[in-house]
């Protein structure tokens, strides 16, 4: 890659706040560095990854509202966690967390367990207890 080919496809992904450093060659073929505000394929792939997160969050919200899973499942997706990650953070086995995702079991969770989950999800225990589903926002 020549220095003048270093991509500058910002796509407003980083809102002009971040530039990464690339290694590129100058006209005589020697390596030098150049900064880049972004590159189209990477923007596409990142955007796709975030869309996937949004999709999973929306699907899980619908399931919680339909009463098939508990808010734990919703907040797991909202915090970009999966079952093994959430289980190790909560200090539980996967099957235990899975059980907590059943609405009936969730209702009877102890306040300590609710507080532990709330802490992992970065929300207040009351919000989780009440089953309030805070909206998901892509990090800006």
């Amino acid at each position, binding site marked *: 890659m020549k220095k003048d080919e270093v991509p500058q496809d910002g796509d407003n992904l980083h809102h002009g706040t971040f530039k990464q450093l*690339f290694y590129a060659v100058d006209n005589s073929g020697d390596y030098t560095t150049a900064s880049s505000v972004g590159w189209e394929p990477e923007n596409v792939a990142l955007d796709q990854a975030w869309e996937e997160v949004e999709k999973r969050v929306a699907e899980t919200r619908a399931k919680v509202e339909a009463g098939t899973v508990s808010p734990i499942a919703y907040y797991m997706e909202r915090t970009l966690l999966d079952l093994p990650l959430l289980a190790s953070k909560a200090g539980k086995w996967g099957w235990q967390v899975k059980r907590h995702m059943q609405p009936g079991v969730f209702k009877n969770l102890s306040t300590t367990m609710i507080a532990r989950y709330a802490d992992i999800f970065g929300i207040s225990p009351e919000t989780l207890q009440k089953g309030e589903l805070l909206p998901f926002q892509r990090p*800006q």
Partner: protein
Amino acid sequence: MTQFSHTQTAHCESGVISNMFRHYGLEISEPMAFGIGAGIFFGHLPFVKVNGVPGTTYRIWPGAIFSRVCKRLGVKMESHKFGSPDKAMQALDEVIAKGIPVGMQSSVYYLPYFPASYRFHFNAHNLVVYGKENGDYLVSDPIMDTVTTIDHENLVQARFAKGFPEPKGKMYYPVSVPKQVDFRGPIRAGIKQACYYMLKIPMPMFGVKGIRFLAKRVKDYPAKVGDRRAGLYLGNIIRMQEEIGTGGAGFRFMYAAFLQEAGLLLKNEELKAIGKELTAVGDLWRNFAFSAGRVCKARAADNMSYGDLGNMLLHIADEEEKVFRRLSKVKI
């Protein structure tokens, strides 16, 4: 307060090495650290899944560059992991109070200053903490263009994130750094190891064989996993290839920069020439990512395009194999 000269680099691990060693008077560029640490690699691991998507890597596993560079340059490091956050933070405070900058492993999800779009649960990010001011930690993060700060709470979260590879509060700092090093031996050892990893690992997932392995699988993605997942799989290949600061070529440009620098230093024209060839391979990788990005965006059920992408990878594998075969014969 400790002075720390921060230079933005392309990648976190080689960047921390370069910045940290310079602090102790040992000048080593980022590409040189990457090359001596034999950072270049390829691996495709369909059974190691993150969020259900198979893993691909363009470099050696986290931490390997660091330990190899230290070994080859004769740098002695102290490295600790911790069972509890309190102990980890106390140990950090003690070391920075002595004016020693400390490297550590962290999860980018918990770094508030980090570019938002990258903040997934990725646990192998390296950064340097070099002081404390008003309760906040002073941070030199090699991928950022300037120094920054982080509060206590977030740093604890970042150091004790769960999931592979689990940081467990890992922190490290040099205890003895030589001022003058003859780079010839370390360069020779680094190149030899890189050639071995790229050409000789007797398993199909690694090195140039791994690129061919991925090529075959990419061709089958739409038929095997359906259009939506195929798109996600492809997207992940691109994201790993463009893991911040590779210039879209999966570290090939950085390694080419190393070969050029090594060629200049050792007055070895052959190394420089091979560096040029690798630059051309890096451009092929960029073309691949570009086409793959198009396929991702189109979300089309177009089997042809996946077949084409597979063929591009096969071509890359052939070219990359030539480069490393030639490199393995260089006398240093």
